[in-house]
């Protein structure tokens, strides 16, 4: 009964609908398809902090204004760090990657091994750039990116309202923390992110260690034990650092005058300058009194990487763009706008940069640093170090076991990755 009713009602409508909709459907879907791109379009994906975007766009604008570049279109798309990695890999596998990537060197190794980006040795003259920043993008004898800035390294910032003169050694720093800092009733003396192994590396260097030797992790060392013990001492015995504090937490403590010092990267310079105005203080991370060595932050930079999928006929255009982006004038301007040190040697000696105190200190810190290893094995080191460092600093594991397991686990992960 019900079925017949249904049939009756629809037997007339259906054929009509079919006749109407099928042509409509195809005509519509045909016109909704996007136009294929041509050789005058450049697609750039980046993962920069938001305040950097206007600068990037301004350089692209200037490039497009040059007479020889008439009709060129540049599309910039922003991704978060994790997204950029997964999307770029998916796009490369799907055969539609962007032409250029702009980002730090830490994922470059992965892209290089996967064949997603191309080695640039023949295309650019890398001797024009500072050697350490080029070394941080060199893997298996090839250079995989054009450096646009030098640094991305940790430094020490201080609040001039609270600190008169920056400490030169950790003993001086601790003396300040034990004395004046207590008197000022500061929450904590030094703010830094103890959970993130990137912040561990300067101290590891100062104790004479380094996480990688070639492609082998070297975590189970005397130096690593000393460094972790140093962390525990700062956290539990001296109580100079906050108990449980990630990046946003340490940033707030420092900005709210509740910590006198912070260890943070060069990316934070312009923000703190704006926030503290005349009270902004910058210094290198003080020498570790116990060993007499300076902490050595990891140094890399920001790089343009060229997708392996970029068409050969586009290479000349891409090369022109990257050379324009890293020209001396733009490198100097980049420093003025973003306070990022130039990667180009010629720009480093420009008076606008050498005359500035901030750049002098930042450069000084870079000279004490070491290039960040580019090998994919570093991922396992970061992961393993982060996990066991967390276990050790929250006293879930004793230092010896944590450090031993850190090494074992990094080796296991590397083996699984490369098997």
């Amino acid at each position, binding site marked *: 009964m019900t079925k017949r009713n249904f049939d009756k009602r629809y037997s007339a409508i259906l054929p009509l609908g079919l006749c109407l909709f099928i042509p409509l459907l195809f005509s519509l879907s045909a016109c909704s398809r996007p136009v294929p791109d041509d050789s005058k379009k450049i697609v750039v994906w980046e993962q920069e902090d938001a305040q950097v975007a206007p600068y990037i766009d301004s350089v692209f604008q200037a490039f497009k204004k040059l007479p020889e570049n008439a009709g060129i279109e540049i599309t910039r798309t922003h991704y978060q760090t994790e997204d950029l990695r997964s999307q770029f890999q*998916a796009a490369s596998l799907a055969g*539609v990657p962007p032409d250029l990537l702009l980002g730090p060197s830490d994922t470059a190794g992965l892209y290089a091994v996967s064949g997603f980006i191309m080695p640039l040795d023949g295309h650019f003259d890398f001797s024009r750039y500072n050697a350490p920043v080029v070394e941080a993008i060199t893997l298996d004898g090839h250079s995989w990116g054009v450096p646009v800035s030098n640094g991305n390294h940790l430094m020490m910032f201080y609040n001039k309202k609270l600190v008169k003169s920056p400490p030169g050694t950790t003993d001086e720093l601790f003396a300040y923390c034990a004395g004046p800092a207590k008197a000022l009733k500061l929450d904590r003396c030094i703010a830094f992110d103890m959970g993130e192994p990137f912040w561990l590396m300067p101290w590891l260097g100062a104790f004479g260690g380094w996480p990688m030797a070639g492609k082998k992790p070297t975590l189970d060392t005397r130096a690593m034990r000393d460094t972790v013990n140093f962390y525990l001492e700062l956290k539990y015995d001296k109580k100079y650092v906050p108990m449980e504090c990630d990046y*946003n937490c340490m940033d707030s403590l420092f900005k709210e005058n509740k910590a006198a010092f912070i260890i943070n990267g060069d990316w934070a310079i312009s923000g703190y300058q704006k926030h503290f105005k005349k009270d902004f203080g910058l210094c290198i991370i003080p020498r570790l009194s116990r060993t007499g060595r300076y902490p050595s932050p990891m140094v890399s930079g920001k790089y343009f990487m060229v997708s392996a999928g970029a068409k050969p006929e586009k290479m000349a255009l891409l090369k022109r763009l990257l050379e324009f982006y890293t020209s001396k004038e733009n490198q100097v301007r980049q420093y003025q706008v973003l306070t990022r040190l130039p990667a180009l040697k010629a720009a480093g000696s420009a008076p606008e940069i050498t005359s500035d105190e901030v750049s002098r200190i930042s450069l000084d810190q870079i000279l004490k640093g070491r290039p960040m290893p580019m090998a994919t094995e570093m991922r396992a080191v970061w992961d393993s170090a982060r996990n066991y460092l967390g276990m050790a600093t929250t006293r879930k594991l004793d230092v010896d076991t944590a450090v031993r397991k850190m090494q074992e686990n990094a080796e296991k992960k590397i083996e699984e990755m490369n098997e």
Partner: protein
Amino acid sequence: MKKQLSAAAKRKRLQHFFIHAGIILFAGACVYPLLRILTVSLRPGDKLFSTDLSLIPAGATFVSYARLLGDTMFLRWLWNSLIITLATSFIGVSLASTAAYAFSRFRFPGKKAGMILLLSSQMIPAGMLILPLFLMIMKLKLMNTYLGMIIAYSVSSLPFSIWILKGYYDTIPRSLEEAALVDGTSQVGAFWRIILPLSTPALSIAFLFNFTTAWNEYLVARVVLFSSKQYTWTLGLFELQGQYITQWGMFAAGSMLVTIPVLCVFLYSSKWLISGLTLGSVKG
């Protein structure tokens, strides 16, 4: 007699007092984090967290809102999200309401398998779909269009909508439809005129679910959209997030602004969450 009544009334009042107190406690737990976000959005200097607990921060300013609306295409992103979400909810609820009717009122082979098949579509961890989705979108040339997103969103909310509607239809007595069918209404007519009006609570739940899911969706949007003009607000808001530095003031301001439409929809849906007809009177 009078005394008894007033005792009952007293008990009722006491009961209501406890209900109000209980709800206000829970509501406080729900609202407080939102107020903290409001604080972040009003706080100068891009700090996500503060040791300061006051809700209106020192030096409160609307500058984050002004910058968000002035310097970014935020309104555009909101608009994009809104039309996608509305289209999705419309399609999703229509497809679900009819499919659920089939599950609720008919016996046919494969019924149980079909129900389980619906469920199983939710069982693949979402992140694993990025790569195949990307390949699909590229093959079908759907990048930068909303068509793919609308289909994906409405289809992925279907299992929940169908299940919840089926459950609700099951509680509506068959006698109601049968009476209408005897009166000469078609099955479709009975569905349209009797079942649908009676299930507004379930329909509005399905609608709310479709709406919030599509409104807050990130993964598919990230795969499909490349040009910032076409972004939904989820993508737009993450423009503000970099590797280390995030513009928390604007981020929080944006979060406040995107929460408002959803709350409006919920407030409006109150009307529909109440069953349109009192079943009791008909059931008798």
